[in-house]
Structures are given as C-alpha cells and as structure tokens.
C-alpha cells in the first residue's frame, strides 16, 4: 500500500486555505506562480543576484567561543557553537530574503501595490525596503502596541516611503495587524499583493515563504561542512510564525540532525500570558490555515503575550505544527526574562546585540546541548539561527534595566 499523495499546501493534518471566497482566486494565482515562476531560471537569477549584491548573502557563519564556554563552562556538552548571522543581512534580519522574493513575484504578477503585516517591524522594514527598491507603493499594518515598542522600525519604514497603519483592535499586536492586512487584501485583491512575513497563512504562503528562506539553511549547511568539517548535532531557531526556523530546518531535515524550535513563554506558560502555540495550543484555524492556535473552548483566539513583538502571535506556521506532531522537530520555549538575559549575555560574550525574538533561541542552547550530549554520549556541535539584530529593542532593554553598567 502506498500512502495517498499529500494535497499541496498540507503538512500532515495542517495547512490548507481557509479564507473568504473572494481571496481564493488570488491564492490560486499565487500558487501557480509559486510552482511556475519561483523555480524559473529568470526569477532565481534575479532574486539570487539581489541576495548577493544587495542583501549581502551569503551571511557569515560565526563560531561563538566565549558564549559557548559561558553556557557550558566545563565544555562537556557543547563542543562548538555556530551562529548563522542573519543579523548581517541588509535591514538587519532574515525577513529581507522573503520580502525581496515576494516583491519580485508581485511584479511578475502585475500587482501595483504591496501590503504587509509586521510585529517587530523587521518584516515591515524589509518590505518597505523592497518596495523602495522597485518603486512600489507600500502599506504596513502594525499593532499599536508594537508601534510603541518597536518605534525605531516605524521610523525606518516611514523614511523608506512606506505608510504605516497602526491597528487598534484586539491585543494591538501581530495577530491584529494580520487581520487588518487580510481585510485590506480582500478589498484590493485585484491590484495588491499581500506580502506575508512568516511561514504562516493560507496556502501557498507557508510553502512560498519557506522556499524564500531556505538559503539560510542551505548556506549554513555548506558553511558548517566547510568550517567544522561536519554537520551539527542540533540546529536551533526561534519560532514566531516560523519563517527563520523553517528556512534553517529545511536543509537539515533529511540529515541526522536534531531540529529545535523555541517559542515565547512570555511570563510563563502556567500564567496563561505567553505565545507558546505549539507548547500549549490546540488545533484551530487562524489567518487562513489549519494549525495550532491559542484559543478557548468557544474557539475565540486567546490574546498572546511576549516581550518580543515578533513572537507575540497566537498561531504558528502549519509546517511547524506538523513537524511537532510527527516529532521530527522539538519545540521548547523561553520566558521574557530568559530572553532578556540572553540578549545581555550574547552582547557581552560575543559583541553581538541580538533581537529579542532571536534571544529566545539562545536562551535554550545550554539545555539543548546537554540534552543532545546525553543522547549522543559526546559533546555536540550546535548551530543557531541568529535571525536578527536588536537595535530596535533598545528601548525595551533599557526599560527592563538591561542597560545598567556592569559592576566592575
């Protein structure tokens, strides 16, 4: 017996296209573009050329020696720690890989206007950047709370010529921004491309975004083989919607490499104030996909919480829901406090100011190394996706007392 071929856009029991009928033709058109245009030589040449000459790819792989010995002073668990430096991408995070790809696609589809949602503002900045580069009008939806806590990115978007539309509904965060972006898209679908910022949303977005983020993992894998002479025992990434994680995971899925995603546990999963969708969610439909969501018994979405705007989301990309279900990837979580501490530790050990989103992944490296060491019986190599830089978070970090001078 052979298993039935999976339906496109489905990952195990997750995915699909749960949207108002008005959007179905646009998603079908985009699906065709994903299978015909994205793999085409012409598209690949233009996109990869931009990644090389404009984004600065390939991004470096950095060996983090001081951080490794800080996380594992005895050296028994962590043989080497490798950082995939997406913070060195133009605009400061992995989001630009996807934004450029989608804007190139939108141009080929004849769309005249780009909209996007953003949480941390990194996807908003990336989309505004791609639109400036190609002379397209750009509107970015962003929850009011995020407009406040990621103010530098709001200014950057405006400087780049984008219109930022603050969203006042719900928790005033990423979920609400995505609601408004979808409403805009339903209204202007004939002329507008919705540049979704994570590997979430209705088919084909999870597939498209994963494809546009896969250079992260492809490069990292080749660099690890070249620099370390081996594959790592574990690969780690933070998970909001899941785009940097899936971009990192794809290249290692067929290898004997453990995959770890780290979600935001906010003030602690037990407090109910968190964004650990895989850790504490249930099967539902949010923003066009069947996936794991934070919802109550009536099916109302529960407002999430995280100090990190980019992880403050009550859903997760369907491919991650499936990877969790099948056990191919393991999902852990880190609290606000752990993430904040990780920002400081990484800054002081490596001289790299990482984004609060990224910091969630770093907060679990020590645990992951010990776990994998216990399994394999020897100290392990771990590779982490350093998804973005933390300049945007300075106000939050200072407000939380992380700027205090080190006692000498």
């Amino acid at each position, binding site marked *: 017996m052979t298993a039935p071929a999976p339906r496109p856009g489905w990952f195990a029991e997750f995915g699909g296209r749960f949207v*108002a009928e008005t959007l*179905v033709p646009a998603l079908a058109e985009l699906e065709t573009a994903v299978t015909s245009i994205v793999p085409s030589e012409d598209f690949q040449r233009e996109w990869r050329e931009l990644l090389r000459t404009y984004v600065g790819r390939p991004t470096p792989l950095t060996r983090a020696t001081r951080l490794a010995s800080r996380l594992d002073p005895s050296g028994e668990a962590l043989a080497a720690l490798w950082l995939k430096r997406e913070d060195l991408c133009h605009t400061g995070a992995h989001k630009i890989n996807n934004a450029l790809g989608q804007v190139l696609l939108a141009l080929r589809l004849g769309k005249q206007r780009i909209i996007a949602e953003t949480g941390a503002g990194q996807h908003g900045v990336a989309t505004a950047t791609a639109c400036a580069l190609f002379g397209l009008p750009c509107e970015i939806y962003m929850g009011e709370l995020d407009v406040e806590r990621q103010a530098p990115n709001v200014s950057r978007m405006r400087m780049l010529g984008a219109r930022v539309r603050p969203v006042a509904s719900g928790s005033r965060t990423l979920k609400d921004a995505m609601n408004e972006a979808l409403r805009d898209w339903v*209204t202007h679908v004939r002329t507008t491309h919705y540049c979704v910022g994570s590997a979430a949303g209705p088919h084909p977005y999870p597939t498209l975004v994963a494809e546009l983020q896969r250079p992260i993992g492809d490069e990292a894998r080749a660099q690890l083989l070249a620099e370390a002479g081996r594959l790592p025992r574990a690969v780690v990434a933070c998970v909001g919607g899941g785009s940097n994680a899936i971009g990192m995971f794809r290249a290692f899925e067929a290898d004997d490499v453990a995959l770890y995603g780290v979600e935001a546990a906010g003030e602690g999963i037990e407090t109910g104030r968190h964004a650990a969708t895989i850790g504490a969610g249930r099967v539902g*439909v949010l923003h066009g996909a069947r996936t794991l969501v934070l919802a109550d018994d009536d*099916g*109302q979405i529960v407002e999430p919480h995280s100090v990190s705007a980019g992880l403050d989301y009550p859903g997760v990309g369907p491919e991650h829901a499936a990877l969790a279900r099948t056990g191919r990837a393991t999902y852990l979580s880190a609290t606000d406090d752990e993430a904040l501490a990780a920002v400081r530790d990484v800054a002081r050990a490596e001289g790299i100011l990482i984004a609060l989103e990224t910091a969630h992944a770093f907060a679990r490296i020590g645990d992951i190394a010990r776990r994998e060491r216990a399994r394999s019986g020897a100290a392990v190599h771990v590779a982490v996706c350093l998804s973005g830089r933390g300049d945007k978070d300075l106000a939050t970090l200072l407000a939380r007392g992380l700027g205090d001078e080190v006692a000498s």
Partner: protein
Amino acid sequence: MTAARLERRLAELRTARRPALIAYLTIGDPSVEDSLACARAALEAGADVLELGVPFSDPTADGPVIAAAAHRAIQAGGSLRAALRVAEALRRESDAPLVLFTYMNPILAFGERELPSAAVRAGADAALVVDLPPEEGQALRGAAREAELALIPLVAPTTSRERMDHLLAGARGFAYYVSVTGVTGSGDAPLAEAGREAAALQQRSGVPVVVGFGIDTPAKARLAAAAGAAGIVVGTALVRRIAAETSPAARLAAVAELVGALRSALEPA
C-alpha cells in the same frame, strides 16, 4: 426539515414572487437575550430567514461594524453554543429558516463532526462558514450531509464563472453572492450588477442566489432584487442600528423599522 425547510420556504417565496429578506444578527450584541428579542422582532417585521452570527475574535471578512459587534458579543457571552440556544428558542415558536453564520475556528472548538447534528437538533437549517471554501473541511461537509444541514456556498465578484458553477453544483438551500470585493459593510457595492450576476447564476444552477454585503437601505435592497436576486441579506445596517440604541425597547423598534422598510421595498409591485 432542515435543508429541506429552507428550500421549501425559498420555493414558496419564489412562487409568490417575493424576494427573500434575510436578516443577520451578531448573537450576544449587546446580550444573548437581546439578540433573541431582536431576532423575534425581525421575524415579526417580515424577515423570511435569519442568520445567527456567531461572534469570532478575529473576523477577517468583516468590516469595523460587525467586528466591533463581535467583540462586544464575546464579552457578553456570545458564542456558537449561545447561537444554538437562540436557534432552539426561536424554533419552538417559528418555522422560519435559521442559518448559522460563523467562522471555522468556533466550529473546530465545538467539534466539526459534532456540530451539524447539534445544529439540526437545535433547529438550524443551514450553516454559512465564511472562511471555508469548498476545497476544505471535508469532515464537516460529510457530517453536514448526513445531518441534512445545508452548507451555504459563497460566491464573490472575483470568482470565475467556471468556479461559480463548481461552487453551486449540489448546493442545498441557497447560495450567497457577495456583492462587493471587500469586507462586510463596504459602502459602494454595485448592487444592480450583483443582482444580475445572482440571477444568471441561479438560472444556470437552479439554486436560489441571494445578494449580500452593502445593502443598508430599502432602495439598495430593491436594486438588487429588481435585477433578479432571489433575496437580499441585511447585516451591517441592522447591527449598526442595534448598537446605536441604548434601551431594549428602542433596539426592538429600530430592528422593526429597518426590517419593515426593507420588507415593503421588496413586496411585488
């Protein structure tokens, strides 16, 4: 009964050459009891079919008026279960077709295999799931077929003719033609064009096709109906009227007034 009740009622209206007047209420705004009273008032004032709107926290196909109503309703205890209770109460006193209007997530929380029979037991005849195109939700569809709960297809201005025919093949009850590329409450819907599209689609498929989105005055209702729609849906305008009043009595009067005016506008000349 069930899907059959809905079909029978629409056939009667057709014979009487009366376009169906379909009234949408967000259940729980301002309270579940008020919604039940408003539903009764709408029926009394001449609504033929009621859509019982299940409030959802993230209603991406709705404009600001219904989205705000949904948030108020959730605070006041509105839910899929509350909508079923309202259906049950209405069914004890009326034979009017009742349609559950909902997003998919409340159904998943309830149980997609369990909902159709529970809905039919409560007296509902159909469900319209806003974010469920025909390619999705096979478990729900199977259970709905078995329970004889009609699942109302939506057709949009962006839907190709080919796809329209596919959407309507085998449809029970009626189909809902969305008049405008947009969310509920959009102001400038081309209603005559929507009415013509609905009529053409009805002719090809044999399924009654009603027009909704953007109908907030008797004149607009007449426009869509005169062009051949099998019925019209009033939603945002009714929700807005209910929200504007502060006493239960004033709310009922507002519902009666708007529904009554729409009813008169739809009477055959």
